[in-house]
Structure formats: structure tokens, C-alpha cells
């Protein structure tokens, strides 16, 4: 797997976005694909009377859960073990990978089918298992596409949203032997269905993520549209479910609240096709749950940012974000991209991801669509301050901010600077004004310059006497 950009020391979102934007036609197409999903989400949300009350309810349930997370973790573990489920605890990604590998190894499992799990992406499970000689096949169509392309997913719900069907046609021609030049989605999907069906029947281990863990019953819920998670786990002798500790909800009847929000927010469907509830292993087989921290308790300890742990991974904030839509998921250099990635990931490594909270216009749309009402724009803004205080701003940005601070803090300076800039904007030749230093002016005209500021106008017209 070439997760190359993950190893770069510092993610430069702006530079990555610029590369993405070099292909104007693709950028426009990407933008429109995501906006289309956003439109479906809006229609689905509008069809539910009391949608806002539902969001508020979901938000409060998650806040409550985080405030008693230790209690619910212990309750979940106790119930799950009583159900015959093996529960494991992993402090970090490395331990998670070791645990999953040990379980598979004990079963002699060599051919693993895996359904979509952002957690296992985050932990780098695939490369780890591959290094240990275990074959892992991602079975969600989008994930399989990016796996064959040797790329990470670019979106947490639709992993191959950045790939054109011509590219998928060529990829399947090479890897699956489909007809050269065939790009019909129906035909390509059928080819993958046939290819993966054999692998499902042949698999000796299955790995899934978890959408919701229910503390009260010790069970968990996995949601898919394709049915790939179920085909994997019900055919293989061992099922390992990997779950971030923040995925818990207290009670079974809370599922009604979250499931009504999840698919509508994600894709505009009233419910995903398969909502599977796991409580006990099939007799004679094994069911394991791995509870993973990997930085989550650190985030919980940050009052400004702990609300980000309420995320249910619907992707609505990505679909609506003007920056995500026009820069693509890979430009974030993280497992979770978009607005939610930009508030979760700096908590893992501030130096490396200090750039991400700036990959936003702070327009606020992400917060408006979030089904659990995470205050994403406020957290983006606060992360910027944290990054600045820790000295992670670029030299240019630091300089500009320092001077802006001085000018805005001193009214006479501010008035004088305004006068000078207004004159300069009028007098300087266009070539100089729109030079390489002016990033804003690259695709836009600067505003028309008024003769005087409002302050000066007021002084002239109303101020006297």
C-alpha cells in the first residue's frame, strides 16, 4: 500500500489543494458530485418532522455518553462477555493491530474480508496484516477500488468519490479482466460482485468496523448498503469488530434516534439497506470486539474539542464543505478528511496537522448539517488559536498576523493604513497589484476602492456640530 503522503512530516493542505485544482474539469465534477449528495441530504432531512429536535436529542445522548464513558465501557464489556463475545482493549493503533493479528493467527486465517472501517484505516491494519502474510480484501466497492489503486479512501462514506468511471474501467480491465473501454457502472459492479463472491465464500476471517455499540445489551450495529459486511462475517469462522471507544450509546432505544439521522445525513436515504445487530456469535464460531483508544481519551480531556468525539461518521460536513469539495479528501493527508478530520486530527499530532484548521472558510455550513450538532466551525477557529500559540503558523502568516494585530489594535494606525492602502490600490499598476504575493487576486478581482472610509464620510457629513 502506498500511503506515502501519510509519512510526510507536515501536511500542506493548500499546496495539495493546488495540485488537485490543476485539473479544472475534475475539480468541477468532484464539487458537483458532492453537492448532489448534499442536496439529497437536505430533502431527506426536510421530510422528517422534528428533525431539529432529533439532532438535539442525538447530541445530548452523545454528550451524556462521553460524560459517563467509563461506566458505559464497563457495562458494554460485561454484557458482551455474558453474550459470549470476546472483548479486547487497545490503547493505540499498534496494540489494535497486534490484537487483530493474534486473533486471526490463532484461527490460522490467511484470507480476510473486511468491510468499511475508518478505524482500521486510522490504525493502518491492512499494511500490518499484509506484512504478516495475511491477505486482506476490502469488500465495499468504493474501498475495493481505492485498494486496487493503492490509494487511501478520499471520503469516509464514498471512498472512491474522486475516481472517474473511465479510470475504474481501466483498473478493472487490468485487475479483473473486464472488457477494455467498458465503463458502464452496472457492468463494472457486476464484475466486482462475481470476483468478490468467490472471496466471501473462501474467506477464513472477517473484519468490520462498528457504527454503534449498545452498552445496555453488549451488542453492536454495522450498517451497509451493499451487504458486504454481512456476507463477510456470516461466512467466515471468526468475526473481529473494531470499535472506537466513543461509538457507544447507552440504550437500544437510542438506536432509533441515531439511525433516523445517519443515512439521511450521509446519502439522503431514509435508512441504509442493511442495519445489522450483532449480539452473540453463530454457534461454533467466534465473535471479537476490539475497543480502541488511540488518542480518543486525549481528545476527551480537551474541553474545547471533546465534542468532536460525538461524530457518527455520516460525512455530511464533507459533502457541504466548499473547501473539501474543491480540494478532495487526499489533500488533507489524514484518514478523516474534511471539516471533521480538521478538528479530530490536530489532536493526534498538532505539528503535522496544524495546517488543517485553516482549510476552511469558517462559513459554518458543516455545523449546520451535523446530525449530532458538533460545533465544528467554533472548533476549527479554536484549533487555529492553539496552532498559532504553539508556533505552527507559516512565517508569512505569522508576520501578517502580527502586523494585523498591531494595526487593528491602534485606531490611528488603522485609519492611516486604510488611507495608504486605498491610495495604493488606486495608483499601483495592475501588474504589481496582482503579483504572485496576491493569492486572493489569482481568481478574483479586488473590490472597488471607495474615495473615503465610512469613518471619514461620517466625520464630513454628520460629525460636525
Amino acid at each position, binding site marked *: 500500500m502506498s500511503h506515502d503522503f501519510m509519512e510526510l512530516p507536515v501536511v500542506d493542505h493548500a499546496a495539495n489543494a493546488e495540485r488537485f485544482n490543476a485539473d479544472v474539469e475534475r475539480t468541477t465534477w468532484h464539487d458537483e458530485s458532492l453537492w448532489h449528495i448534499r442536496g439529497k441530504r437536505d430533502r431527506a432531512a426536510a421530510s422528517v418532522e422534528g428533525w431539529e429536535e432529533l439532532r438535539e436529542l442525538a447530541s445530548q*445522548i452523545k454528550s451524556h455518553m462521553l460524560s459517563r464513558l467509563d461506566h458505559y465501557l464497563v457495562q458494554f464489556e460485561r454484557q458482551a462477555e455474558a453474550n459470549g463475545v470476546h472483548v479486547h482493549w487497545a490503547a493505540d493503533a499498534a496494540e489494535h493491530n497486534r490484537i487483530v493479528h493474534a486473533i486471526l493467527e490463532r484461527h490460522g486465517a490467511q484470507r480476510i474480508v473486511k468491510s468499511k472501517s475508518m478505524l482500521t484505516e486510522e490504525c493502518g491494519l491492512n499494511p500490518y496484516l499484509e506484512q504478516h502474510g495475511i491477505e486482506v480484501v476490502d469488500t465495499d466497492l468504493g474501498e475495493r477500488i481505492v485498494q486496487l489503486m493503492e490509494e487511501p479512501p478520499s471520503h469516509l462514506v464514498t471512498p472512491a468519490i474522486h475516481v472517474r468511471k473511465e479510470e475504474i474501467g481501466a483498473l478493472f480491465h487490468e485487475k479483473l479482466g473486464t472488457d477494455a473501454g467498458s465503463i458502464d457502472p452496472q457492468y463494472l459492479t457486476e464484475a466486482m460482485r462475481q470476483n468478490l463472491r468467490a472471496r466471501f465464500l473462501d474467506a477464513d476471517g472477517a473484519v468490520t468496523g462498528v457504527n454503534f455499540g449498545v452498552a445496555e445489551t453488549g451488542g453492536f450495529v454495522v450498517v451497509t448498503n451493499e*451487504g458486504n459486511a454481512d456476507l463477510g462475517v456470516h461466512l467466515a469462522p471468526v468475526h473481529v469488530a473494531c470499535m472506537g471507544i466513543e461509538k457507544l450509546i447507552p440504550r437500544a432505544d437510542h438506536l432509533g434516534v441515531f439511525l433516523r439521522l445517519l443515512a439521511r445525513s450521509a446519502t439522503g436515504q*431514509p435508512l441504509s439497506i442493511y442495519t445489522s445487530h450483532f449480539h452473540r456469535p453463530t454457534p461454533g464460531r467466534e465473535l471479537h470486539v476490539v475497543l480502541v483508544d488511540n488518542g480518543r481519551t486525549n481528545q476527551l480531556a480537551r474541553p474545547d474539542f471533546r465534542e468532536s468525539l460525538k461524530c457518527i461518521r455520516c460525512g455530511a460536513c464533507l459533502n457541504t464543505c466548499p473547501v473539501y469539495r474543491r480540494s478532495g479528501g487526499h489533500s488533507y493527508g489524514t484518514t478523516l478528511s474534511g471539516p471533521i478530520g480538521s478538528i479530530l486530527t490536530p489532536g493526534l499530532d498538532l505539528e503535522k496537522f496544524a495546517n488543517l484548521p485553516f482549510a476552511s472558510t469558517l462559513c459554518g455550513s458543516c455545523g449546520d448539517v451535523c446530525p449530532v450538532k458538533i460545533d465544528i466551525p467554533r472548533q476549527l477557529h479554536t484549533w487555529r488559536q492553539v496552532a498559532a500559540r504553539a508556533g505552527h503558523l507559516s512565517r508569512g502568516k505569522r508576520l501578517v498576523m502580527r502586523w494585523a494585530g498591531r494595526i487593528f489594535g491602534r485606531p490611528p494606525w488603522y485609519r492611516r493604513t486604510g488611507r495608504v492602502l486605498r491610495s495604493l490600490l488606486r495608483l499601483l499598476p495592475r501588474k504589481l497589484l496582482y503579483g504572485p504575493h496576491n493569492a486572493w487576486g489569482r481568481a478574483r478581482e479586488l473590490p472597488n476602492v471607495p474615495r473615503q472610509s465610512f469613518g471619514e464620510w461620517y466625520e464630513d457629513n454628520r460629525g460636525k456640530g
Partner: protein
Amino acid sequence: MSDEKETSTRNTGTKTSRASILAAVRRAKPAPLPLPDPREPSRGKTSLSSESPDELVERFMDAVEAAAGSASMVDAAGVRARVSEVYPEASLAASVDGRWDFEDVRKVDASNVDVLVCAGMLGVAENGAVWVPESGMGLRAAPFLAQHLVLVVSRTEIVEDMHAAYDRIRIDEDGFGAFIAGPSKTADIEQSLVIGAHGPRSLLVLLVP
């Protein structure tokens, strides 16, 4: 798997991690916040409470069709005939314990089943989903392996929304259970909807009295 090996795994990394994670949570968590009741005051109604049972059934059927499934009403005695009518080319149709006069899914190779007929416990009007507990599947993998899936639900078992559904079912009654809300589908190639991703290529919901 030997118990001894299992114990050794539990006693190494994972046991100390359990303690350290729980300790970290206790240090990090905020002061206790209240747990709201999903039933109060408003939980996001999808319909008027004045809806009649017939209206609920109609809305349920519309939702099944909207999810690219199909729904129709039959008498209990007409299940077999309707399935043959809709799937005339099916060479292997099966059900749990051979109910409705099909083959017994547990006595055939489930991966060769063309049409599987399962009993659903209830249907949800807001999204067309049907709750199918493991006991209604015969084999857990069967409803996902079959080329086509038929779910038989009683007309009197249609509830308004997911809240009402969870009020009625016990999710841990069986070891496994699923809401099924349409045929298997994907839109992972340029957002083009394709029916029949990995699971059933079609879903027929039959409503019986």
C-alpha cells in the same frame, strides 16, 4: 482455540490497556450530563398520529418502492404462487424449514439459492425497513447470499417509525438480527445507482393479513 492461549492474550497488553484506558477516561471526562428521554418532548415525528393502519401500510409500501424494492399484498396461501409469478426462472427457491412449500434453506447449498423467502417480524413505514431476526433467516448468511430476497410481513405489523420499531423488538432476543430496507445497492462508481452490489438483486415484500 485453546483457553490457555486466550488467557495469555488477555493477560498481556490488553489487560493493562483496559485499566489505563478506563483511568484515562475517568481523568478526562466532563462532569456528568443528563440523559434525555428519546420519547420526550418531541422525538421527530414522521407522520400524524391520526394515521390509520391502512395509511401506515400504504406509506410502508411506498417506502419499499422508493428504496427500489417492490411490495404487494397477498393471502397467506398465496405466497408460493406470487413468488413463482415474480421469479419464474428461479431454479431454487428456499425458506426456513421449507415454509410456504419451498425447499428448506438449511438442507440446500445456501450459496445456490435463487430466491429466499423469510418471515419478517415488522415493517417500518418511514423507511420501508423490515426487521428480520436470526430465527427468521434459517442461516445468518442466507438473506445476503440469495440472488433475490422475499420478506413476508403481516399487514398488522407495520409501525410508524424507528422509535416505534425499537419499542416493539428486543434487539438481543436472537444472536443476530437486521433491518433490511431494499435490495443490495451501491453508488460507488460516479454516484450511479446500481442495484445488486454483493447481496440480493431484488427485494419483494409480501404483506399478508
